[in-house]
């Protein structure tokens, strides 16, 4: 034998013990900080672009080692995974998927480190649309930086429009035109319906848009933080009546009005649904599932009876783990700053163009136009930009009121005899007694200084 066994064993032992120790000494000497994130990109065309930007960060920031892990699971599972990780003190230093409606809850739970010290001195965020920070702002402190933004618009099948004798370049402009189009697009013999309505548990996610378009509000946040119910007013009744009409008068929605949003999307891809409320930023999913760009039309949501063209804005935030030590928080901030910079956004758009991923994503920089970088149907960019102009945040106390609001919405979709006003009033009585009044009492107690901070 060339080497005695004892020599080989000693060499292996030294490599195992000495190797890591050497790299640890290097990192200490050169002050390399390790942070963990959960944004390992998936193996999709969009994921590969994200990976390229991350590698650019790694190259330009050798003093920060980012350990990336995948989140995995369905969309709601990642919130659960993060909550569990926070409870077990095993959460990443930097997390990119704090959803708009969820982040206020996470701020209350203490999951997010306040970023004022970083943002205040940073000119990078002077150009950002201010409303983008609103959901992550509490008591004047900012707790997150937007990582993704979406705005809801009308997405429709141009090929199905043509089949039904409708002009695909002329999407519906208002509620009545929309209902008429949906009726004409419905063909039971072909298992096809005009519009995939959202009737499942989160039905109010889309229904709130109709309430805004009718000139009303679902709830109102009073200046002192208390909540006022507004969904018994005339605009909300009108919006619910419209839902009822789509189902029973125009007969243009799916046979199972309560099917999930995933089922709605599936129907749209498979040509069973001609129109759906979705985001231009999610067109990539439709393209990945086999649709061609020329089959998809995007338009701002039709205006309501008042002429208002409201829609909903949402997205996710980057947050920093408050339990991470200072040097990791600083490193995490550098990472966030890089990943959300205008330069990174432009690089992403250019790579999307090269990869033929030509669909409009919403950006939160005022002067950054997606259509300057992506070759896509003109109306896509216009529709996305127009929708952004009319975008609004979700209604106040949504997380607590949503399970109650599902009932009246589902009632009018499953029962032709359900009266929208009566259903909303019944719902309002329960919401007032069980959610709003206790919530408002808590607020009043906090204002009076009798309740400690942090209780929900």
């Amino acid at each position, binding site marked *: 034998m060339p080497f005695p066994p004892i020599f080989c064993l000693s060499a292996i032992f030294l490599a195992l013990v000495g190797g890591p120790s050497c790299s640890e000494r290097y990192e200490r000497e050169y002050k390399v900080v390790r942070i963990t994130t959960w944004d390992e990109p998936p193996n999709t065309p969009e994921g590969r672009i994200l990976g390229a930007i991350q590698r650019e960060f790694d190259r330009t920031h050798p003093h920060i080692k980012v350990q990336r892990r995948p989140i995995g699971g369905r969309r*709601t599972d990642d*919130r*659960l995974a993060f*909550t569990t990780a*926070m*409870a077990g003190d095993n959460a990443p230093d930097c997390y990119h998927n704090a959803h708009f409606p969820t982040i206020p*809850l*996470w701020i*209350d*739970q*203490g*999951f997010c480190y306040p970023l004022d010290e970083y943002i205040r001195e940073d000119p990078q965020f002077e150009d950002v649309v201010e409303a983008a920070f609103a959901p992550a702002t509490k008591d004047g402190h900012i707790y997150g930086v937007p990582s993704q933004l979406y705005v809801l618009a009308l997405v429709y099948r141009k090929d199905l429009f043509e089949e039904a004798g409708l002009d695909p370049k002329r999407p519906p402009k208002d509620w009545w035109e929309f209902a008429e189009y949906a009726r004409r697009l419905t063909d039971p013999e072909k*298992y096809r319906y005009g519009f995939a309505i959202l*009737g*499942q*548990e989160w039905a109010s996610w889309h229904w709130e848009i109709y309430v805004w378009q009718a000139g009303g509000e679902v709830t109102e946040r009073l200046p002192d933080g208390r909540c006022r119910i507004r969904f018994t007013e005339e605009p909300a009744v009108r919006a619910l009546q419209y839902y009822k009409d789509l189902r029973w008068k125009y007969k243009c929605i799916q*046979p*199972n*009005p*309560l*099917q*999930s949003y995933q089922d709605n999307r599936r129907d749209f891809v498979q040509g069973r649904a001609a129109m759906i409320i979705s985001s231009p930023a999610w067109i990539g999913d439709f393209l990945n599932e086999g649709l061609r760009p020329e089959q998809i039309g995007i338009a701002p949501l039709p205006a309501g009876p008042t002429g208002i063209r409201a829609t909903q804005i949402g997205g996710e935030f980057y947050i920093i783990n*408050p*339990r991470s030590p200072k040097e990791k928080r600083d490193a995490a901030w550098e990472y966030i700053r890089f990943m959300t910079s205008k330069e990174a956004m432009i690089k992403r758009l250019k790579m999307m163009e090269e990869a033929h991923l030509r669909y409009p994503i919403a950006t939160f920089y005022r002067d950054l136009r997606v259509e300057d970088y992506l070759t896509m149907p003109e109306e896509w960019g216009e529709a996305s930009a127009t929708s952004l102009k009319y975008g609004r945040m979700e209604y106040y106390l949504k*997380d*607590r009121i949503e*399970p*109650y609001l*599902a*009932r009246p919405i*589902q*009632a009018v*979709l*499953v*029962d032709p005899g359900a009266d929208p006003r009566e259903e909303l009033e019944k719902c309002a009585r*329960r919401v007032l*007694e*069980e959610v709003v009044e*206790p919530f408002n009492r808590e607020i009043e107690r906090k204002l009076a200084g009798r309740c*400690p901070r*942090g*209780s*929900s």
Partner: protein
Amino acid sequence: MSKRKLVGLAFVAPALLVFVLFKYVPMLQVFRMSLYDWSILNPPGEFVGLKHFKEAFSSSLFWIAWKNNLVLFLLGLVLGFWVPLVQAIMLGEMRRGQYIFRVCYLLPLMVPPMVTLVVWKWIYNPEYGLLNAILTRLGLPPQDWLGNPKLAKLSLVLPGLLGGGMGVMVYLAAIQGVPQELFEAAEIDGAGPLQKLRYILLPRIRFVILIQFILALSAGFQMFDRVFVLTGGGPVDATRVIALLIYRYAFESYRMGYASAIALVLFVVILTVTALQMRLSKLSD
């Protein structure tokens, strides 16, 4: 303590330890959490005493969920509880081919329950589901199985009515444990099949039926997966159940304390009904 007892304890101790750690400790923790406005990051948070229980008892969603759970349990009991027993009795009577049927009854256990539920979701599809296709062939109108509040509960219970599974095996083992001499003696005395069933078989396996009932009760009140996959609690709260309420409050609203309070109430109810059932069973002995 004798050496024999010590040895016995040593063998039982690891399993007991795991049981205590993963069953009883979490139960005690849930009790503790229910008394606080639980903070995930900095437990325990603010002490609120019985506030969560008061809130739960005055919540309409809470009572709707209880009512739904009760109806679902009773539907399952009336329509499906007896099916595995009948299957086991028939299996017991078989002279040949019993093995094949036992395999057939056990094979579905290899399929993850979630997969089964997703298949049922397709079966229930109002446009192209199998169930409506059969109804149409029979000249009957198609139904909105998951979207009709009057049918949604039945739709949740239906997947469990086909029997099979471990219940059949448990009953079969109990039936095969009944001495054959009793049946032969009864036959000599002129007893018919129904009399043998009523006076010999059922009394002999009564304890197994009681255990299966308790398991069914527990499963009925803890029903979650079917609701989560098939209906999400709708339509119009027709299938909103306690377990779903707990899930939503805990993991979507982050109200761990409130969710724990509801979970504790569920535990107490199941425990009480189980204790009553066992007591009634002892009294009738």
